[in-house]
């Protein structure tokens, strides 16, 4: 119980929004693709991904690797193989329907008229082949259809299959209240156990029924029998009422409209619930699974500094953070997502002390922070100041005992320097770097660099940091 409470503790409103948003996106994908092959394949891929996660957690190296490869290939296969279905779904809908609403079921075929037409065809021994598509697309299974789009009527159906009609040999596809296509070529079945009196029409009907979920009605030209093919099975239908019932069942038409509506609502509700559960599971596996602790060094950003102020020194320029979160989130962290900011708005001239807290640190969602080292930061802030200082030579070593240096004049005599006011104000001269005395044998000149110490001290623009020294050496008086 405690573990469950810990799992749910610390959930923010952003997390709930995150789960809700992604659940809705998944649900909308279901709504758009339901009834197509794509959705089934996506569900299989989701299951594969789930298995892959389990195999990773169990340490099944090859299995997880293989499933990962299959999943990646599967995603590619979906796009290539089902490009037509995807295109149909995306093209057929308005933008609003992507976000809201459900595709209305296709209009119900007037099965009585169709059944009566088929019965009439049978009585007259006119061969016919009628296809009633199921949820699957026929696009890849059939060929050479001629678009018809005629409102269903007994006369029309009879005329399509009338022997002198050029399209009477092909199949007619019935969709909703229309004859959508005629002269359609169906794939033939290669089964060898079919009765000898079954002709090409029967083989074509069975071929399509084997490959898709469509229902195909065949009217035998010779015998005047009506045969129905579905899911690879053929059945002779003797009575018109029986045919009506079969067609109704195929279309999922129930006599009770209220019951049908309830069933549809239940299906949608169940889908929404499954989407929510699935995304919640994914979210928890990402954010709560396998908590790890990762150390990370992050540079400090000093912000909101007053325009005239300059940072002279700080006790540290980076802090060590110990971040906690799920292993998968940790792996996806990019360094630029973590920022440590120190507001210098309240800083005054001199040394300022700040204590870093969680408020100073920006982290990606789902990542926590355990420790900050060091937490106390000293920042020295100052205003830059210019000052002209006399140059003085810093001699080192020792002249021979008989020699004495009586004069040493640097040129230029004065140098303008820039630096923090506290530093510059404390200076009364600027020194050269060490100049070695033993190297000198007599009077002369030499060059030396200025020693800019501390490092915050700079030579003013235009001035040189190298000076010339004219020196005079004489014999010592005894």
């Amino acid at each position, binding site marked *: 119980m405690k573990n469950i409470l810990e799992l749910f503790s610390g959930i923010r409103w952003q997390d709930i929004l995150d789960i809700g948003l992604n659940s809705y996106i998944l649900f909308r994908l279901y709504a758009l693709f339901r009834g197509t092959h794509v959705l089934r394949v996506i569900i299989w891929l989701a299951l594969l991904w789930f298995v892959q996660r389990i195999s990773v957690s169990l340490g099944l190296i090859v299995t997880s690797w293989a499933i990962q490869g299959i999943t990646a290939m599967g995603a590619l296969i979906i796009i290539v193989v089902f490009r037509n279905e995807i295109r149909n779904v995306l093209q057929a809908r308005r933008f609003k329907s992507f976000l809201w609403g459900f595709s209305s079921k296709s209009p119900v075929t007037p099965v009585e008229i169709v059944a009566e037409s088929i019965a009439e065809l049978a009585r007259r021994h006119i061969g016919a082949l009628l296809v009633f598509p199921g949820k699957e697309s026929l696009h890849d299974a059939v060929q050479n259809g001629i678009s018809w789009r005629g409102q269903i009527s007994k006369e029309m159906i009879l005329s399509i299959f009338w022997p002198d009609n050029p399209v009477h040999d092909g199949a007619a596809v019935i969709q909703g209240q229309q004859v959508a296509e005629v002269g359609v070529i169906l794939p033939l079945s290669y089964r060898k156990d079919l009765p000898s009196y079954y002709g090409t029409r029967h083989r074509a009907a069975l071929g399509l029924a084997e490959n898709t979920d469509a229902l195909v009605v065949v009217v035998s030209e010779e015998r005047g029998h009506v045969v129905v093919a579905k899911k690879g099975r053929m059945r002779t239908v003797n009575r018109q009422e029986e045919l009506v019932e079969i067609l109704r069942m195929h279309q999922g038409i129930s006599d009770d409209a209220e019951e049908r509506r309830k069933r549809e609502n239940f299906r949608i509700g169940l889908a929404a619930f499954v989407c929510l559960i699935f995304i919640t599971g994914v979210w928890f596996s990402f954010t709560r699974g396998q908590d790890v602790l990762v150390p990370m060094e992050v540079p400090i950003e000093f912000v909101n500094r007053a325009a005239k102020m300059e940072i002279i020194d700080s006790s540290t320029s980076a802090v060590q953070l110990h971040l906690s979160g799920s292993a998968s989130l940790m792996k996806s962290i990019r360094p630029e997502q973590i920022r440590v900011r120190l507001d210098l708005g309240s800083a005054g001239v001199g040394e300022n002390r700040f204590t870093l807290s969680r408020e100073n640190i920006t982290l990606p969602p789902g990542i926590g922070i355990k420790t900050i080292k060091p937490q106390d930061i000293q920042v020295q802030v100052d205003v830059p100041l210019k000052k002209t200082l*006399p140059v003085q*030579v810093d001699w080192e*070593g020792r002249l021979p005992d008989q020699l004495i240096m009586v004069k040493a004049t640097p040129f230029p005599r004065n140098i303008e320097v820039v630096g923090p006011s506290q530093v510059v104000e404390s200076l*009364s*001269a600027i020194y050269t770097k060490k100049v070695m005395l033993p190297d000198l044998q007599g009077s002369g000149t030499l060059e030396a660099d200025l020693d800019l110490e501390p490092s915050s001290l700079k030579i003013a623009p235009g001035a040189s940091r190298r000076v010339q020294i004219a020196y005079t050496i004489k014999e010592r*008086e005894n």
Partner: protein
Amino acid sequence: MKRFFLLMGLLPLAVLALGACSASHAQEAVPDEQPITQAVPTLAKAVMCEDIQEFKPKNASVVFSISRGKVFCYTFFDPVPEQTFIYHQWIHRNKLNTKRRLYLQTPRWSSFSSIQLRESDKGPWRVEILDQSEKVLTVLTFSITD
């Protein structure tokens, strides 16, 4: 002829007296704007040296070996209008090391100060000569080396 020379001698004195009188008037007109002038000694000579012998600097130099043990700052003021004092301010690497007050006597006076050298005294030094009001009269620079 004797009178003529006497007259010629008195004439410049009379001109000087008139000038002094007018200057005195001018001072009275703006008494607050003129600072109260102080008789300051004139620095005639200032050197760093290895020793002082008979009130004179010996071996004036700008580099002193620590082995000598001592270094002197010699100053000579001429004239010294009135008894006053000056400062020798010894500075090592921008840090004040010591500040000595030295009294000057009329009409001229030489004075000196010195420091005992230690190992930590190596490096560039400066002695600022200040008057009574701490105005810098001159700055002497030198180095203490090995």
